[in-house]
């Protein structure tokens, strides 16, 4: 076994002195994220600039059997970038370029650490009629990591998970080879992550960096219309929410639908706020879509069960901003900056049961709660968030929030949901419930790709 110093020197040789650290401050920082998982320090933090540097780092780690954890902004909040077994954290932030936009085939190629914010401003500046599906995470969240965890953004209702929008990958395998996935493996175009070939993107998406490090990613872009509006529907009958969502989705006019439920500020208490986003190139187009939305729930409006809030342009601005700052604001409601959510992906019919569970659990553990649900696809499923905010200076409150989250996740699994970006405990819960043959297939894939088990160990660890 080579010494720590020798590894440090090797890393310095690969990326240069400024981009390797084993300092206490850095280790402290990279040991944790904003959520509730216990911290664990890495031995090194390294920031590569090129695919070749990533390759060399991975080869070194594989040779020396050192754990290696690819990290974006660490905003998944479920500890997915906490180096559970130490080793090297590969912070991807320096690989932050937008490499190519193909206007005609509507895709972009970004590097492994390009942020959502950078991509958004690049498109606004250079290709204002194209957009991507922006998640409501802070803008420093990375495009690749968001796809890796199957994130959802502002086009989820129309186009599904952000990982569905991936149109090609370049991956450094755990053994150091660079591999292209999708149309780009045969052609210079990055228009498809699989079809008509076998879709190998599934070997990397959803794996939390346990099967390789993505160094480039193609992402589908969508038309960006000139005007955008939000209609805010309210109901106080939780049991109506699934049907309202189906009706909205039936219009095929809505690009994003988000449902908020929280007891504070007071105006939210006792009602469910359904934010319905529409776009158009003209006032006429918007007006037509508005009418479709009204018509979709007209009988509920007449029975007085559903209403629309009139919102001024000022009032709409925060709802229209992307990402929404409201989630981040909620995240600090308890002051002290602690926030985590369990976000099971679930059929929309579960909404009422999940809301009841959220309220019950929040009362039981005396924690502040909220929920933001996002419709994914044409009502195919939704991401329901059981969110809790807490004060980091209050360990008791943190422990209560963690117990509340665990109980919600367990409940969601029992109800038929699948946990989104699960932390290591939740991954275990999922694997216990999983079809054993599926689990075995995952185990074989993992062993094949990562024979030395160096990639983000602790995650998707199949016994």
């Amino acid at each position, binding site marked *: 076994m080579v010494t720590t110093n020798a590894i440090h020197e090797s890393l310095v040789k690969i990326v240069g002195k400024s981009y390797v650290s084993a300092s206490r401050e850095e280790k402290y920082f990279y040991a944790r994220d904003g959520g509730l998982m216990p911290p664990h320090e890495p031995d090194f933090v390294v920031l590569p600039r090129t695919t070749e540097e990533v390759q060399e780092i991975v080869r070194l780690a594989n040779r020396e059997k050192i754990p290696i954890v690819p990290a974006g902004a660490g905003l998944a909040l479920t500890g997915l970038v906490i180096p559970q077994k130490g080793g090297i954290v590969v912070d991807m932030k320096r690989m932050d370029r937008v490499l190519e936009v193909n206007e005609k085939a509507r895709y972009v190629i970004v590097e492994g650490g390009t942020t959502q914010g950078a991509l958004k401003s690049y498109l606004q500046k250079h290709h204002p009629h194209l*957009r991507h599906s922006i998640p409501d995470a802070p803008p420093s969240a990375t495009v690749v990591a968001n796809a890796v965890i199957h994130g959802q953004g502002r086009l989820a209702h129309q186009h599904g998970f952000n990982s569905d929008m991936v149109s090609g990958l370049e991956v450094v395998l755990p053994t150091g080879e660079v591999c292209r996935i999708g149309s780009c493996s045969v052609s210079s175009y990055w228009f498809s992550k699989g079809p008509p070939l076998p879709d190998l993107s599934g070997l990397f998406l959803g794996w939390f960096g346990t099967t390789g490090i993505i160094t480039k990613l193609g992402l589908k872009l969508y038309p*960006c*219309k*000139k*005007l*955008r*509006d939000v209609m805010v529907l*309210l*109901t*106080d009958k939780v049991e109506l929410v699934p049907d309202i969502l189906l009706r909205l989705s039936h219009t095929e006019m809505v690009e994003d639908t988000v449902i908020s439920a929280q007891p504070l*500020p*007071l*105006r*939210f*208490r*006792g*009602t*469910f706020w359904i934010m319905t986003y529409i*776009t158009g190139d003209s006032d006429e187009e918007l007006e037509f879509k*508005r*009418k479709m939305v*009204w018509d979709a729930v*007209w009988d509920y*409006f007449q029975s*007085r*069960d*559903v*209403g*629309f*809030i*009139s919102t*001024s*342009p*000022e*009032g*709409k*601005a925060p709802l*229209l*901003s*992307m990402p929404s700052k409201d989630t981040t604001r909620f995240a600090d409601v308890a002051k002290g900056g602690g926030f985590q959510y369990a976000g099971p992906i679930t059929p929309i019919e579960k909404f009422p049961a999940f809301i009841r569970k959220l309220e019950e659990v929040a009362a039981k553990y005396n924690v502040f709660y909220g929920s933001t649900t996002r419709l994914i696809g044409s009502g195919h499923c939704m991401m329901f968030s059981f969110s809790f905010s807490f004060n980091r200076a209050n360990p008791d409150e943190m422990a209560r929030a963690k117990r509340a989250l665990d109980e919600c996740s367990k409940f969601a699994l029992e109800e038929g949901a699948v946990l989104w970006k699960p932390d290591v405990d939740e991954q275990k819960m999922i694997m216990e419930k999983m079809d054993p043959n599926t689990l075995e297939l995952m185990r074989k894939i993992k062993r094949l790709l990562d024979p030395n088990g160096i990639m983000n160990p602790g995650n998707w660890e199949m016994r």
Partner: protein
Amino acid sequence: MIGLKFDKTKCVDCKGVFCLTRCQYLQLDRDTARKEWQKIVDGEDSFVLEACTTCYACEEYCPFHNHPFYLIVERQEQKGILPAPRPIITMWINQCQPVGRFTVGKVDERMLSYCFLPHFNTLVKGKLFDDTAGAVVFGQEFFCNAVYLHYAHTSVITERLPQIVANIGKLGVRELICLHDECYGTFTSLAPAYGIEVPFKPVHYFEYLYNRLKGLGKTVKKLDVKAAYQRNCSSRLAPETDKLVDDIFSLIGVERVKREYDKENALCCAEIIRMGKGPALADDIQKRNIDDMVKAGAEYCVFNCPACWDALADKVARKGIKPVHIIDLCKLAIGEAQSLKLPELAVEV
């Protein structure tokens, strides 16, 4: 004893049944109006209770100041008729609940009330407010609560208003300058109609502005512009204040354009109507109103109520008319800048 002081004998003598025959939305002949009104007075069912848009105008049309609108609202509540969807009403009731979050500036005998409208933080600036700036109350604890008239919830008003009045009284305020027209209507019409005593003198901000402009003498320059005035629902509770608009306009050289939908025939901003009756009627009202402003040659649309501003400023601007709050209009006349403006119209995509 808090309760609506409604004198049904006054209605017996009423020849015109103006409360219903002049209604801009019902189109009733006098006989039908009389029959339906009698039903309402007697506490019986009437289609009027369902059809009411809650525009407040009948308060102004009643020659006996007998509060027909307040009676309609009482009856709606008694019968469980919801002029707007239930969740909207719940949201309003929760949002304005007094929970101890308010702002009290420098306490004085003469204070400004911002009601619960943040717009006044932007509007109240400059020389017009030199002698009152800082003496401000704002928040749920000082919120006039008249909005629940739109939602058939007089009970919320009678429950909360006495405490609101007491909160202001406790500060030792003698004169409360109401920047939200609806507060003035509440303290001068709604509260007395319900027997709620008001231990201070409500002053309409039009009167305050007029006096300030007078005081500023030669600094006031004539603007020499034509403006449409957007009357708001709550001005129907204190219609006598409408004359002050003309007084202010004449001081600052603004011509109030003659148009169909002004004065007693004014159309409201219609956003409350949108929430209660849906988009078709609201769109129609707004279109008629704005087209009328354009036809009358208005350069400006002058707003009194910030809620009307929220509803219409953007829409009048799209028709080439400049939206301005009356406070800002006065500022323009003394060489100060307009503070309440539309946000950047380009919506971020």
